[in-house]
């Protein structure tokens, strides 16, 4: 029944659809489609699939995501019902109680925020449909029956389903985040409600970080990985009030964002729409009618139809149709101060995402793709296991390494404790690491294998390493070398602050 319903709605939307937006800047109300004034209920439900609700195989993640929905709805409802003065106190505490005791099932946000849903019905639909896409991709990734390749194919199908079936969608093109957050009311919400804004950005940290945690990693690693990720979410990420910008998919899940860049961009654009809406609602100088108009304009800025004739990698810099992206990261729009080569990343400084975060040598393409390291809220891509381990060794706290092995279907997941002791998702893992190897070749001499047989097979093909002994996890863990001499630090100030942050 849903398919028929989708087709009808899609046809209606097509009839009402707006054309390409203006070259640079505002979307005028006259150009907005009629559905933006439609307040009727028209929920869309999940694409029918056997993997639906597999997220509950990672129970705490599922509940935390349910809590996010409640948090969004409570804040919005209080903002539009005259309780905005309580947002940083009573509302924050009420939301925090829910986040600490999240619901077992996903709530209908309209029942928590009925006033907001009535006033901004079209916005709720736009949010809701993208949230369904969000949820179903997580269901795919947590499903125990599908292979990695089958999951990738299904995620592609979900993206097409979203574009083809939803009457109006959020664009998968990269958008210039600096432009979108340079509206007259931008930053109003963060400045006025820093604690609740911290919650919103904390939700978005979780919603973006979970992709690399789940993508192409064995399902039996998901619960132990989330023990670390979820702890950080609850202890730190929800309560940060000093972030420079909302978390981006490319920053927190660079592997997924690189592979599914349209979807990653859509999620970033969705999160930016949340910020733009928040800023409008936090601007008392705008009367309700003007707020409605500005929110409709904000929706227009991120719609697929607004950017119908545009292509990724092109566009006028610093405008609504700036669809460039940083080098190596097609799943992310341009950020404040960034150019095609480098961008500023919270917690890391200026980074080139096409280079190893530890040795600054260009990242490899194909397999082995290297590894990622998740620590302190960021996830960085590195060229090899040595770079991952040594970067973790230099960084306080617990961490997760996700690394390529000789088998593209098996990702090694290492979870490290506060002292740099690692546990492995592959008990029989064997490492190759030469003494004194040069970093531009580290993908050859620093590798992980799923078995001793695979290690021996590799050495037969590369006899230059025939004398190198295999390392087990314990032996590999205690090795370490100085930061490689190829490491390049990009010395530029934080573009979000007039002076570099830090204790004074």
């Amino acid at each position, binding site marked *: 029944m849903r398919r028929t319903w989708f087709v009808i709605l899609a046809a209606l939307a097509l009839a009402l659809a707006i054309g390409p937006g203006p070259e640079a800047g505002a979307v005028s109300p006259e150009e907005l489609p009629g559905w933006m004034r439609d307040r009727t209920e028209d929920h869309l439900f999940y694409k029918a699939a056997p993997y639906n609700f597999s997220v509950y195989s990672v129970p705490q993640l599922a509940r935390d995501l349910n809590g996010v929905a409640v948090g969004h709805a409570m804040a919005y409802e209080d903002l539009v019902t005259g309780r905005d003065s309580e947002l940083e106190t009573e509302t924050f505490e009420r939301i925090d109680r829910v986040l600490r005791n999240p619901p077992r099932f996903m709530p209908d946000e309209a029942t928590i925020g009925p006033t907001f849903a009535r006033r901004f019905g079209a916005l709720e639909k736009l949010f809701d449909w993208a949230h369904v896409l969000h949820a179903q991709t997580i269901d795919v990734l947590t499903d125990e029956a599908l292979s990695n390749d089958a999951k990738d194919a299904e995620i592609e199908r979900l993206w097409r389903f979203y574009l083809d079936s939803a009457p109006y969608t959020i664009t998968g093109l990269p958008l210039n985040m600096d432009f979108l957050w340079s509206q007259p009311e931008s930053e109003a919400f963060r400045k006025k409600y820093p604690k609740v804004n911290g919650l919103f950005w904390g939700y978005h940290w979780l919603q973006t970080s979970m992709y690399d945690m789940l993508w192409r990693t064995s399902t039996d690693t998901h619960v132990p990985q989330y023990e670390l990720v979820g702890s950080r979410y609850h202890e730190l990420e929800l309560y940060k009030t000093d972030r420079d910008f909302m978390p981006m998919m490319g920053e927190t899940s660079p592997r997924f964002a690189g592979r599914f860049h349209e979807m990653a961009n859509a999620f970033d654009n969705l999160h930016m729409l949340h910020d733009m809406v928040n800023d409008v609602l936090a601007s008392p100088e705008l009367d309700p009618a003007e707020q409605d108009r500005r929110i409709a304009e904000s929706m227009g800025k991120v719609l697929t139809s607004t950017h119908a004739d545009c292509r990724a990698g092109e566009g006028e810099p610093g405008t609504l149709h700036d669809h460039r992206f940083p080098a190596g990261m097609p799943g992310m729009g341009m950020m404040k101060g960034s150019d095609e080569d480098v961008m500023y990343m919270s917690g890391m*400084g200026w980074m080139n995402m096409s280079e190893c975060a530890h040795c600054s040598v260009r990242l490899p393409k194909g397999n082995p793709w290297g590894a990622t390291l998740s620590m302190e809220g960021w996830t960085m891509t590195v060229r090899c296991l040595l770079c991952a381990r040594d970067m973790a060794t*230099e960084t306080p706290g617990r961490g997760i390494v996700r690394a390529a092995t000789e088998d593209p279907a098996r990702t090694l997941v290492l979870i490290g404790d506060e002292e740099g002791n690692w546990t492995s998702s592959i008990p029989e893992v064997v490492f190759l690491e030469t003494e004194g190897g040069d970093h*531009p070749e580290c993908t050859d001499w620093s590798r992980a294998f799923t078995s001793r047989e695979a290690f021996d097979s590799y050495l037969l093909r590369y006899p230059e390493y025939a004398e190198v002994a295999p390392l087990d996890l314990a032996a590999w863990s205690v090795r370490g070398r100085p930061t490689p001499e190829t*490491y390049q*630090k990009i010395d530029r100030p934080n573009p979000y602050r007039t002076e570099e942050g*830090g*204790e*004074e």
Partner: protein
Amino acid sequence: MTRTRSVSKIALWLGVVFGLTVMGPSWALGHEGKCPLCKLDLVQNTDSLDYEVVVKVGNKKIEYRCIYCVFGDQKRYKTDLVVYAPSEKPGEPVVLKRTAGVWSAPDSTVFLNSFAKHKTCATESRTFSSQHAFDRYVAKRAITDAVALTLDEMLVAAAERKE
């Protein structure tokens, strides 16, 4: 090794060499990063003086900007620590230990902790192997009102500082 593989490696090497040549001073060698406590840049060791304070915790080696930052951040760590604190001599750090929660240092160790803002902590929060070395250091840098602190006094000073 295939021909393609060799060519790509040569190209990669040439790229790195070219980069090192043309990028000049912007290519930084060594342990660059931020201090986990004060978030300011780590100061690199020089021929005449070391700056990087290294905390060894298990397999990890975490670098701090000054000895105050180590003491100020020590609650982060639950287990035993070994601290390699730069002294007045390059390559000869004073080794401090926290064992079962109790700090220890060589008998003659003294500390300088006179910085007002973290911008100067790397030069004004330091460890010395002796009172004599401390006196020479503060005289050379004309650090006024400098007081040589014992380990216990340094720990108290670190605990009392409001950040």
